[in-house]
């Protein structure tokens, strides 16, 4: 069949030029332990208004995925951040990540201030997202959602700082596997067919020390004057490949070895497609092939770093073989020690009480800075807040702001937020005792002896920077350095997640109902039953029937009238 499209210009109207653009980039950073950190970022910018009222709802989607656009307009979402992580980011060995994320699934959303029922929207939003990402996000409900009062300020534009419109939840138990990667890849304009996304083969990505995929949606400034806003969708994928699984002792990596694929073309819908390689550490000991004259300097996470840039939109990057395989060899060992680092563990013994210790390290030699610690503990660990102590350098350190919301059994979790000033070059320890609750027997998971997870603590801080950061917003900034808006030059914002905790709750023996029924029935049958029989039965003597000869003899004797035989 042939279809005839009606030409828009026939009516005298002209279509406005498309106002969306797509950029993709890959940053490769060798870590000093021999591992290699690869970070993919895909950004779609779209000048539109999802929150429009009336019948002129957005209906023509080009680069922005329609499933997410419909979610934004239906639930009046101002900002959405969702991440799925497998593994734990080791800050002391690997430094700071570009975009941090806690193990499991994390979802935090700022709703628009026109929303009247935030909880209802939140519940429906989690269900819809669980369908989009094939994850069990429908387990997010009131028992693990919190409303932080000072952490998680919006990362995008907006004046909504009323924390009634913020919801935060984590699922530390959530598994990430190919079934989460598949729908995530489908949200990209080129899918996994062209551009940098062809490198995402699940067999290699999940055979790693750390894997995190995230979607961040927020409104941002379109230009320097910031008179109009555009919606930004960032999809990020951070992977840390393990040095030792390659089986070699040398620090040598290539794109083919990491991803089992090479790059053949940039995504045709992308306005920019670049690969950055961090060569700051010991550039003379670095061997990079194919060599490139393009170098770029960027200030990221308070440090000035040098990158080799490969532009995939230019055909000469791919060389003769039309295939781009990056090879790098390095021998350097230096790493900038991260200034902020946090750990968390459970102390104590037995299944009744315990103690949560959160340790925060400030490695700056002479500067003190404040950190905001946010802890969300499920209701079945009953915290005793009167035992909360904060000590730095073995002296009491009183926080300048504490917000505590106690838990309600089966209704909401504990929320503890504290603003602590960390003295320079010190270790601060926050301890709180808790008691474990006994759950109802239907509330236990099918595998309760595995333990119950407690989500990571979040430490947000403005860390003093060694290098002056630039507060100007430019379009050419690489994506990895422009995620968090910079307000002042001397410090940068960083978020550190601690480990999640795995706590054993007193677990009943689930075969006990069956055992009790068996035992009770046996006792009743044997004990009471025999007693009842003894009392109510009458006994009669029963003679066995005599043999035939005797019976015949007795018969004859009866006839004769003579006494019978015994």
């Amino acid at each position, binding site marked *: *069949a*042939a*279809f*005839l*499209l*009606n030409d*828009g210009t026939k009516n005298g*109207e*002209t*279509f*406005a030029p498309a*106002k969306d653009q797509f950029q993709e980039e890959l940053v490769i950073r060798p870590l000093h332990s021999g591992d290699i950190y690869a970070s993919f970022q895909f950004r779609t910018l779209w000048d539109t208004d999802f929150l*429009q009222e009336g019948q*002129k709802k957005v*209906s*023509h989607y080009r680069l922005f995925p329609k499933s997410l656009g419909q979610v934004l307009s239906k639930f009046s979402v101002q900002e959405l951040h969702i991440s799925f992580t*497998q593994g734990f980011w080791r800050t002391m060995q690997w430094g700071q990540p570009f975009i941090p994320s806690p193990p499991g699934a994390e979802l935090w959303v700022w709703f628009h201030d026109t929303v009247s029922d935030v909880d209802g929207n939140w519940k*429906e939003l989690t*269900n*819809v997202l*669980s*369908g*989009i990402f*094939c994850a*069990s996000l429908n*387990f997010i409900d009131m028992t693990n959602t919190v409303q932080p*009062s*000072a952490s998680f*300020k919006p*990362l*995008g*534009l*907006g*004046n909504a*700082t009323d924390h*009634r419109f913020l919801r935060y939840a984590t699922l530390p138990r959530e*598994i990430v*596997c*190919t*079934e989460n990667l*598949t729908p995530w890849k489908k949200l990209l304009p080129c899918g996994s067919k062209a551009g940098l996304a062809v490198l995402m083969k*699940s*067999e290699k*990505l*999940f*055979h790693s020390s750390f894997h995190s995929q995230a979607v961040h949606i927020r409104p941002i*400034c379109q230009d320097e004057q*910031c*008179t*109009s*806003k555009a919606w930004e969708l960032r999809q990020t994928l951070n992977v840390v490949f393990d040095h030792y699984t390659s089986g070699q002792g040398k620090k040598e990596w290539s794109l083919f070895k990491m991803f089992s694929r090479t790059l053949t073309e940039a995504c045709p819908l992308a306005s920019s497609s670049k690969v950055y390689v961090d060569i700051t550490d010991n550039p003379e000991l670095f061997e990079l092939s194919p060599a490139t004259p393009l170098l770029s300097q960027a200030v990221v996470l308070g440090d000035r770093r040098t990158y080799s840039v490969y532009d995939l939109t230019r055909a000469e990057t791919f060389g003769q073989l039309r295939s781009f395989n990056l090879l790098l060899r390095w021998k350097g060992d230096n790493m900038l020690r991260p200034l902020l680092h946090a750990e968390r563990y459970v102390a104590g013994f037995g299944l009744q009480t315990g103690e949560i210790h959160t340790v925060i390290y400030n490695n700056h030699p002479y500067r003190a800075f*404040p950190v905001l610690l946010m802890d969300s503990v499920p209701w079945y660990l009953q915290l005793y807040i009167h035992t909360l102590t904060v000590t730095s350098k073995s002296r009491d350190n009183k926080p300048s*702001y504490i917000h505590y919301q106690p838990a309600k059994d089966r209704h909401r979790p504990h929320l503890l937020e504290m603003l602590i000033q960390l003295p320079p070059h010190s270790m601060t320890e926050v301890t709180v005792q808790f008691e474990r609750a006994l759950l109802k027997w239907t509330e236990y998971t*099918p*595998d309760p002896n595995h333990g119950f997870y407690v989500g990571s603590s979040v430490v947000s801080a*403005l860390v003093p920077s060694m290098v002056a950061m630039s507060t100007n917003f430019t379009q050419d900034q690489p994506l990895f350095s422009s995620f*968090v*808006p910079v307000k002042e030059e001397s410090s940068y*914002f960083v978020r550190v997640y601690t480990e999640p905790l795995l706590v054993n709750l007193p677990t009943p023996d*689930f075969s006990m109902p069956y055992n009790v029924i068996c035992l009770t029935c046996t006792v009743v049958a044997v004990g009471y039953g025999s007693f009842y029989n003894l009392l109510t039965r009458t006994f009669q003597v029963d003679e066995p029937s005599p043999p035939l000869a005797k019976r015949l003899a007795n018969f004859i004797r009866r006839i004769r009238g003579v006494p019978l035989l015994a």
Partner: protein
Amino acid sequence: MSHDFLQMHLKAVISCLLIFLYKVHTTKAGQFFSSGHTNNWAVLVCTSRFWFNYRHVANTLSVYRSVKRLGIPDSHIVLMLADDMACNYRNPKPATVFSHKNMELNVYGDDVEVDYRGYEVTVENFLRVLTGRLPPSTPRSKRLLSDDRSNILIYLTGHGGNGFLKFQDSEEISNMELADAFEQMWQKRRYNELLFIIDTCQGASMYERFYSPNLMALASSQVGEDSLSHQPDLAIGVHLMDKYTFYLLEFLEEVHPASQANMNDLFKVCPQSQCVSTPGHRTDLFQRDPGSVLITDFFGSVRKVEITKDTINLTSPVEPPIQRSGSGDIQIESLTYVDQLPVAEIIHQKPKQKDWHPPDGFILGLWTLILLVFFQTYGIKHLKHIF
């Protein structure tokens, strides 16, 4: 005269012939469009948790793979896996689930979409999916949106016994519940024909209570027999597949979308010599003869294509995107980003106004008690001094 008679006779014969040919033509075309179903769905469930039940996940994924290969799209498949084997920390090759030893075939693939996973695979969710009674906020991918012209394939695997199937080692579904669920589906016209395959120990007990029409059932073993697992892989350390599903997968690998294999071939899969247990089947509730039912009626997907050479005019134009009104005279304030950690603001933050709640039950009860005691001792006449 006779000439006219002959002509009339000839005309009558020719018209009869034409009518006869026309009827034959329409019945062929009619047949093409009047087959029973118009769409296909599949509900594939693995009910076992823990690493040593790897084979149940591999069973379900191999049926998923065959069903996808033969044409059923992900939107029409509800896949329920009770535990994650592919990205389990004990899996030496992450993101893979193998069905043949020596890691020959990765049934997990690269584009799998699991709808219900982990703790979500419960008896309640399974029955809700079948009967369609799900909460309104359930996404489409988690629903079985079948109608009265759908052919549904239901595959269950796990640990079972005489009359029940165990879900995640903590609850069971009985054969009566399953039969009732299918009856609900029939009364709500949620299926045209349904094929039920179960691979558990004593699987035949699960279909002996069915009573709804248009159901065909297959099981891997009879009552009193155990279904056995096939081969272990020494690198992974567990048994990879169950015998029945292994041979079922081998059979399905030879089926392609245009294949004419029918249900009688499916009944012959895995005879006792290969399976050790005796597979059973039940067709008395099924209206058609199993020999005329194609494998692809349940495992594949129906696509009725009508080719036409007509031109169709699309008259409604695409709506142009909304033009924003010019910002000429209006003073637009420049928007700013929010401060991420405004220390001064946080320290001086006022506690947020809590919504007023009516007093708790305990407080109310306590006050009622105090008032009652007061009026008891001092009498009701003092009431006027208060009010």
